[in-house]
Every structure is written in C-alpha cells, then in structure tokens.
C-alpha cells in the first residue's frame, strides 16, 4: 500500500508537515517535525531510486485518472537521481540547521522558517517528480515563494533587497515558463510531458513551438542562473541565512537544470524544432562565458559567501556545458556535476555557516588564521575548494574528466583546454582562501572563537567526506548519471 | 677546500696557509697534466685524447661561461627588491 504510493508521499509528506510546523508554533517542535519529514522524504526518494533502477520508469496516476487526462507522476532514472539529490541534501542540512538557525534567526520566527523550508523542499521535489507541465509551474512557484522567504530571513538588511530582486526575477522566469508551457499546450492540446513529446514528434514545425522553446529556455535559464541571467544569485546567496544558502545552492539550481534537461531532451527531443535549430550552440557559448566571467569575478570578492556564490554561477556553467555537448559523456558529466557540485557547494556553505556562527558574515580578512581556531572547518573548506578546482581524488575531478573526454570526442580541443584552464581560475580564488585561513595570524574576530559545535560539523563533514568518497568511488554517481544520460539521449533518437 | 680568506685567528685563514695551499694546488694541477704521460686517456672522438685536453677544455669552458654570465649580467640582473613593490 505504502510502497505503491511512494511517488505521492514524496511530495505530500513535506507538504503536510509544513502547516503542521505553523500549527505547533514552537521552534524546537517545528524543527523536530522538519527533521522527521525530511529524513522520511529522503528514505522515500532512495526507495524510489532503487525501484527505478530495478524495474524501470514508474508512472503514478493521481485519483486513478489515466494520463494524459489525469495528472501523472512519472519517475525515470533522471528525476529519481534528482529526487535523491534534493531530499538527501535537504535531510542532512536539518540537524545542522538547529544551531545555525538559532543563531541567525529570531526565535519567534523559527517555526515559520521551518514551514518555508519544508514548502521549498515540497516545491523542488514536486518539480522533479511530476509528469505534468502545468504542475511544474505550480510546484516551481511553491518552491520559489518559499525561497524568497528563506532568503529574506537573513540578518543583513541587504537580504531583503536580494530577496525582492529574486522575487521579481523568479516571477518573470516562472511566467516565461508558463507562457512556454501555454504555447505548447495550444499546439499539442496536452499537458502531459510524455504525451506532449510524442505529439510534438509527429507535428510539422510551427512558429509557436519556437517561441515556446525560447520562453522556456530563457525562463529556465533565469531559474538556474545561467549567465547573463545570474545577477540575482550572488546577493541572494551572500545575504541569506547560512542554512538557506547551503540548501538553495545545493538543490534549487539543480532542479532548474533538471527542467532544462527534461524540456530540451524529453519534450523537444524528437520534435522538428530541435532538428532545425541548435539550442546547444547558444547554451555552450553562455556556459563558457559563465565559467570564465563568474570565476574571474569570484577572484575579486572579499565576502567569502559572495565569492562562492559567483563560483556557483561558474559551476552551473559546467553543468550546462555538459548538457550542451549533447553526447553520452558530456551529458554524464553535466548530470554527475549536478550531484558533485551540490555536495561540494553544500559542504562549503555549511562550513561557512559554522564560521558565521562564530564571527558573523565571513569576510576574507576576518577568516585569517581560521585553521588555528577552527581546524575542522578550515580543513573541510579546503576539501570543498579542491573539489571546485577538480583536483583528483575529489568529486570535481570526475565531472571534469567526463566533460573533457566529451569535448575531445567531438574534436573540440579548444573547449577541453578552456574547461581545464578555467579550473586554474577556480584555483586562484580557492587558494586565496586557503592561504588566508592557514598562513595568516588569526584575525581579532577569530581570536576568541573556537571550533563550531559538533551538531553542525558532523553534517557538514558528511558532505565533505562525500566529496572525497564520490571522487574515489564514482561507480554509483557516475554510473547512475551515465544511465540517465543514456535514457535522455535515447529519447532524442 | 683548498683556500681560505685572510684573517688571522683561524689557521685556515692565515695568509701563510693560503699561500701554501696555492702552492699545493698548483702542484696538483701540474701533476694531473703530467700524469697523462704515463696514463693513456682514451680519446673517443680524437681531440679528447690529446695531451692536456681535459685541462685546457675545463679551463676554457669555465672561462667562457664566466664571461658569458658576466656579459648577460647587465641584461638579467636587477636589484633584489625588483619584484617586491
């Protein structure tokens, strides 16, 4: 009974838990509810992934209405992977968050924060799991609205402006997506993604299809902060509470990437649209621009959170680069980098949260001598940073390996070289941080500070160890990503 | 080493010692060249079997290198705070 309803529970569980938090009104109780809901959600997502790996695509119909009329949840290996990614990270952050939220957010707002957190998780999971185009929009807005709240909770007043700006941008993005979906609905008469794909493949090319693709691409690009539509991201990540940053950086943009994959491969994969125009070339160019521009900007940041926020823009560039390469290895690289970047950036922002707990907003100068006062935090940051560079033995190496192999397979030496040279830019900003943390005398702010509490360090270090573990043993991540890539590519044939 | 500077508190640094060391050094130099009368140096490419070739070659090469380094000096040398700014 429960087993057959897992796809529904995946979304319903956090959705129900959110109002429960509001009803309980006590911060600690709300935290407990969140804790149980997220871990249960994570368990469900893993169960779903195992089932998908075992038995292939799962289709779940709501209320017994058969697709394409009813709403269908459709889980194949691609979104099963995304579900696991989002829910596991969402779960790991919760035990960490107790102290961090306690320090950064007023106590009477805690239960609301947790409600927003759960709603955000609901939205992200919903986007990933649903097989219905309009549902995508609704869940996207649920997650976005919750995200604006999560960001606005930041202590710095600039968090409010950042949240407002993100609200404007996010709404425009979501509206573009809904316009795209509307145009597709007008052309095909269906909202079911699979059905839509099938109908598009038999239709001749019409201009509204092109317009739909344009609106969808721009809308999704906005959500995933693809250069040059990334401008909302640095401030949002920099001034949001540490917990929000860690959660959003690891999950929100990844779900948007999933949407890009779903639309450009599954929905438009066989249509005449893709045959006639090359979306790839544009995204490729933007990805490369993102990688270089954002990395360069990151080098000059003094606010460490902002620095890593720009680095996120660059790392998203790698993901979209893999997608735009559109061959087996490129897609594998892109998809596995979704996971790898989520783990590495999640770890980094969680550790920065540890720093923030001790000294407030972490600026470069204040983090001097961090290794002496907070050795575990500093060590974790080093591992996370090395992953961003793509040093062998860390997750970053795996993704870049696939990307470069894909570029070489296409005979694009220049691209392989660019990908690798760009890691040197990452090296500059990471090394700048390492040098400051390890080879300077402790700053006055850090002088009195001690190591962060274990309740924060352990979850962060779970991700840090993940950075190394999945860098050495990539069979699970890269294997799943490879079969996901394969299934996406098969859809385009 | 065979030489030492002029200072008087250490035996190696006394001018007398240094003079003696020079004498010994030059004697050894002469000996190594003269030894070639008795010991055949195998010449692999002709010239290197010549009498005293090693000595001449060593001296001239080193002189040439010192001269080359000296000549390059004005182009390459900079004050050691050059990069500090």
């Amino acid at each position, binding site marked *: 009974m429960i087993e057959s309803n897992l796809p529904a529970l995946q979304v319903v569980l956090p959705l129900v838990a959110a109002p429960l938090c509001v009803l309980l009104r006590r911060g600690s109780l709300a935290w407990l509810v969140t804790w149980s809901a997220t871990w249960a959600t994570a368990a469900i997502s893993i169960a779903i992934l195992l089932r998908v790996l075992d038995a292939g695509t799962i289709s779940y119909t709501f209320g017994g209405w058969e697709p394409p009329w009813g709403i269908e949840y459709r889980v194949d290996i691609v979104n099963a992977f995304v579900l696991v990614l989002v829910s596991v990270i969402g779960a790991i952050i919760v035990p960490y968050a107790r102290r961090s939220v306690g320090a950064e957010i007023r106590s009477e707002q805690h239960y609301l924060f947790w409600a927003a957190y759960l709603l955000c998780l609901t939205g992200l999971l919903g986007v990933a799991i649903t097989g219905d185009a309009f549902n995508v929009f609704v869940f996207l807005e649920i997650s976005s609205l919750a995200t604006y709240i999560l960001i606005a909770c930041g202590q710095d007043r600039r968090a409010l402006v950042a949240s407002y*700006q993100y609200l*404007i941008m996010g709404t*425009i993005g979501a509206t573009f997506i809904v316009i795209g979906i509307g145009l597709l609905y007008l052309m095909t008469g269906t909202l079911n993604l699979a059905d839509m794909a099938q109908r598009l493949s038999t239709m001749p090319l019409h201009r509204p299809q*092109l317009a739909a693709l*344009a609106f969808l691409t*721009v809308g999704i*690009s*906005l959500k995933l902060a693809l250069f*040059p*539509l990334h*401008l909302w991201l640095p401030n949002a990540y920099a001034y949001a509470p540490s917990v929000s940053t860690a959660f959003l950086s690891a999950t929100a943009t990844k779900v948007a990437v999933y949407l890009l994959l779903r639309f450009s491969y599954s929905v438009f994969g066989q249509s005449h649209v893709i045959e006639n125009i*090359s979306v790839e070339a*544009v995204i490729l160019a933007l990805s490369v621009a993102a990688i270089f521009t954002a990395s*360069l900007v990151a080098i*000059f940041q003094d606010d460490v959170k902002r620095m890593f926020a720009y680095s996120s823009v660059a790392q998203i560039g790698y993901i979209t680069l893999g997608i735009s390469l559109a061959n087996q290895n490129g897609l594998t690289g892109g998809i596995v980098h979704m996971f790898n970047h989520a783990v590495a950036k999640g770890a980094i922002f969680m550790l920065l949260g540890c720093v923030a707990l001790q000294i407030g907003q972490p600026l470069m100068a204040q983090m001097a001598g961090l290794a002496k006062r907070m050795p575990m935090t500093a060590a974790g940051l080093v591992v996370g940073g090395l992953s961003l560079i793509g*040093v*062998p*033995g860390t997750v970053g190496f795996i993704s870049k*390996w*696939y990307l*470069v*192999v894909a570029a*070489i397979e296409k005979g694009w030496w220049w691209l*392989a070289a660019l990908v*690798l040279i760009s*890691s*040197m830019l990452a090296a500059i900003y990471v090394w700048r941080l390492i*040098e400051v943390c390890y080879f300077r005398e402790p700053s006055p702010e850090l002088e009195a500070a001690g190591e962060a509490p274990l309740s924060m360090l352990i979850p962060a270090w779970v991700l840090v160890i993940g950075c190394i573990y999945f860098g*050495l043993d990539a069979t699970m991540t*890269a294997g799943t990503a490879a079969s996901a890539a394969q299934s996406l590519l098969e859809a385009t044939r | 080493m*065979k*030489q030492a*500077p002029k200072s008087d508190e*250490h035996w190696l*640094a006394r001018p007398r010692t240094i003079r003696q060391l020079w004498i010994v050094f030059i004697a050894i130099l002469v000996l*190594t060249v003269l030894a*070639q009368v008795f*010991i055949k*140096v195998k010449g692999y*490419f002709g010239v*290197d079997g010549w009498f*005293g070739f*090693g*000595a001449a*070659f*060593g*001296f001239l*090469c*080193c*002189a040439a*290198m*010192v*001269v080359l*380094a000296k000549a390059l000096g004005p182009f*390459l*040398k*900079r004050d*050691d705070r050059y*990069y*500090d700014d």
Partner: protein
Amino acid sequence: MTEWTSPALILLAAAILIGLTRGHLRSAVILVAPLLTLWAIWQVPDGVVGTVRFLDYAIEPVEGSPLRRLFATIFSIMAFTGGLFAFRHARWYELSAAFAYASGAVGVCFAGDLITLFLFWELMALFSTVIVWCGGTPAARKAGIRYAMMHLLGGVILKVGIEGVVVHTGSIDIQPLLATNFDTWMILVGILINAAAPPVSAWLADAYPESSPTGSVFLSAFTTKTAVLALILLFPGEPVLIGVGLYMVMYGIIYALLENDARRILAYSIVNQVGFMVCAVGIGTQMALNGAAAHAFAHIIYKALLFMSAGVVVYRTGKNKCSDLGGLFRTMPLTTICGIVGALSISSFPLTSGFVTKTLISQAAIDQGLVVVYFLLAAASAGVFLHAGIKFPWFVFFQKDSGLRPKDAPWNMAAAMVLFSALCILMGAFPEAFYRLLPYPVDYHAYSPGKVLFYLQLLLFSGLAFFVMLPWLKRTPTISLDTDWLYRVALKKAFSVLADLLGSAQERAQRSVQKLLQTALARIQRHHGPEGVLARTWPTGSMVLWVAIMLASYLILYYLL
C-alpha cells in the same frame, strides 16, 4: 585485497597521523613510516599487481619493475632522511605535507596507468605548494601561489594529453610513446613543466628558496625526479629531449653563476642536473636510461645534502644571501664538510656518487656517437664544478669573514647530513653494488685510470678558472630576470588593468546597453530625455533588461534559423 595497495599509502597514512599525534609519538611516525614504506617497496613484485575500476577504466595502481623500485627506494630514503633532518624544527603541517608529497612521488613510481599517474602527480603538486607556503614569509606566500599556478597549468596540460590518448587509443597503459601528435605532445609538455624545462624553468628557482630551511630539502628531491621517471617510462629515446636537456644544463650554470641567494644557486643547479637526466632519456639507449635513473638516484642524495647544509646555515643565521654570508667554516665545521662532500658529488668528482652516475650518461653519448652532446656534457660537468662545486661552499663557508659565528648543526640535522654524506662516498667508492639496482644490466667500469685523469684535469682546471676569475664572480645583491618576468610583471600589469576593467565591466556593459536603449527611446518618447528614468541605473531593472534582451535574441535567433 591488499595486493594492490600502493606503498604510497603508508606515507599518506603517516601524513595524516603526523597531524593527529604529538610529541614522541609523532617523531616515531616520522622516522618509522618511511622505513616501513621502503620495506613495502621491496615487497612489490614485477608486473601489474592488481586492477581497480575507476570511472570506466581498469586502473592499475601498482605495477612493479626494477626502475620503479629504484625511484621509490630513493624517495622513501629521502623521506626518512628529510624527516630526520626536519622533525625537531619544522612545523607539523610542513612535515605532514612533506610526507603526503613523498607519498605522491612513491605513488607515481608504481603507477601502472596514466590515470593513477595523474592522481599522484596532482597530490604532489598540492602538497609541495603547502611546503612552499610553510616558508611563512609574505614572499613565500606569493611564490607559493605562482608555484601552484605553474603546476596546475602543467597538470592541466598533462590531463588534456592523457585524456586525448585515452579517447583516441582507448588505452590507459603506461608505455613508451613518441611525441608525434597533439595528445603525446601535451603529455610531454606537462611532464617537462614539472622537470623545470625551458621556457618555464623559473618556477623552481622562484619557489624552492622561499620555503623554510627544512622545506627546501624535501622540495629538492621529488618533483623534478618523478618527472624524470615519467620521461623514462613514457618517452625513452624522444629526440626532442636531448636538446631540451642540453639547454637546461647550460641555463642552470649561467643563472647559478649570476645568483646571490645561496639556496637559489642550488635551485638553479637542480635544473642543470635534471638537464643531464633529460638529455640521457633523449638518448634513450639502455646505457643512457641506466644513467638517467642512476643520476637521479645520486642527485637526490647530494642535492638534498647541499640543501641541508644550506638549510642549517639559514636556520642558524637567518640569512640567505651570499653577500651576507662567509667565513662560517670556523664555527660550523661539520656543516662545511658535509656541504663540501655534496658539492664534490654534484661536480662528479672521482670517488663520489656523481662520478659513477654522470659518466654513465657520457658513455651513452659516446656509444651513440653523439659528438656535440658529449662535449657539451663535458663542458657542463666543468661548469657544474664552477657554479655548485666551488661557488656554493666558497661563498657560504669561506671567502671574506662575515663576522657571523653561528653554532653548528643540531644533532638530528647533523645526523641526516652525515648519513647522506656517507651515502655519497659509499656509492662513489663501490659503484658495482649500486649498479646492480639499475633497471638494465650494466657493463661499465667507472674507474678506468684514463677517465679518472681526464675528469681530474677537467675539474681541477675549472677550479683554477674560478679562482683566477674570482673578481668577475663577485656577489652583487641582485636577482636575475627569467621568463617568470612575463607572469610576475607583464601579466600582473595586464591583470591589474583587466581587474580594473572587470570591477566595473558588468555595470558598464549594462549601462551602455541601457544608454543605447535610452537614446533609442528618447527619440520616440521625448519626455524620457536625459533626466529620464532609463538614464539611471536600476539594479533590478538591469537584470530584467537582460532577461528581455535574452528573450529577444532567442526569438530572433530561432526565427531566423
């Protein structure tokens, strides 16, 4: 399960343990782990020991051969002696980094495939950077960044090459290649960067002397020599290497002659010595490869010895510059003697290790009839005596009296120096035993009277030249420009210009787009004028503007195509 465990992992574990232990326990780890590694190295049988799946490849983390064991042996001996030299004085993270660095070197020795090689290669790059940083001065920090960038660049180039070979040949095995296509050229260039080959030799002399007195001992041993090993494994007989090697030999001499910093003189002489080895790999016969391997082995010992003696001087006096040093033999007799033993070895004086290994290379050149190479190497041997054999000990320990009266080396440093001095002389005195370790059978006798006499003439008259031309070699408080000027000055200037531009580039770009739009709009809507709302910069507005621009471009692009 354990059969594929690389001996490198012992050192890696030790590196972690050094961080976790204190006091005597830490000292024990430092001294025991390398010996344990040495033991493990000799347990590795010939051939591939086991395979592991990584990504889509079957990688071979451990593959034994006499050549690989030879290099691993000297690396572990180096780790032991370096540890002995440093354990009472270096900070724990320098020691930890040094052991991780050594672990990378040992790992490269046994790497059976290109991916494993690359993994350990990068491990070395990472932790050697940390060692440079442990110099602790602002100059060391900056040099460390430059060092890291150079090695990252080398790693990037190597990685492109390796991935190219993997994609195009489907094989990740380590096997002899020739630089014939883009992939192999990239691999060659990547390795040569680590060997401090031109035009980027400068990184070595830039970084090593900035490290701590103990750090430079470790640095001198591993990076360049693993590059030599990689060249022997991958590019034996690659003709390009002969030229590269000869250039390095001459470059090292000239720059060392111009140099004032004691440890920088030694750093340049590493380039010079590695040049001999690279040249030998280029010759590529069994004799030459034996020579390269043997010379690397001997070189690690005497170069570490030289860096130790220089390190003791820096440790005791705090001074680096020849122009500030001198006359130290009075109070540091042991350091002086050990420094001289090292200096004689590097100059390949008969009865020292350098003699029995470098003449192998010369012999290989003779056997192949390479006249020019032979004479250039002979000239270089004379030059080595000039710049390292005499110049280094002369200016540091003798020349004028600087008035410094430092104490001699602490006991552990002394012990390390004596150990390596003894090895230098034992190897030189009993070459036959050492020759048996070499990868190919050796039919060569170093001590023929004619050869000894030739080298004595060559070296002693070089010495004469030194003292005759001493006034020309007077130390000046200068540094020498190198290709690193390009990235330390030229690039920096370019970069700061770029930084200025970038600082406001985004805003400026947006502003100009907005201005464009504004002027267009102003024509249509007069009331928007110069004071119009679009003339101002709205952060949110400009973001949305980008969205509009993107959408328009997509639509136009799609409709046109």
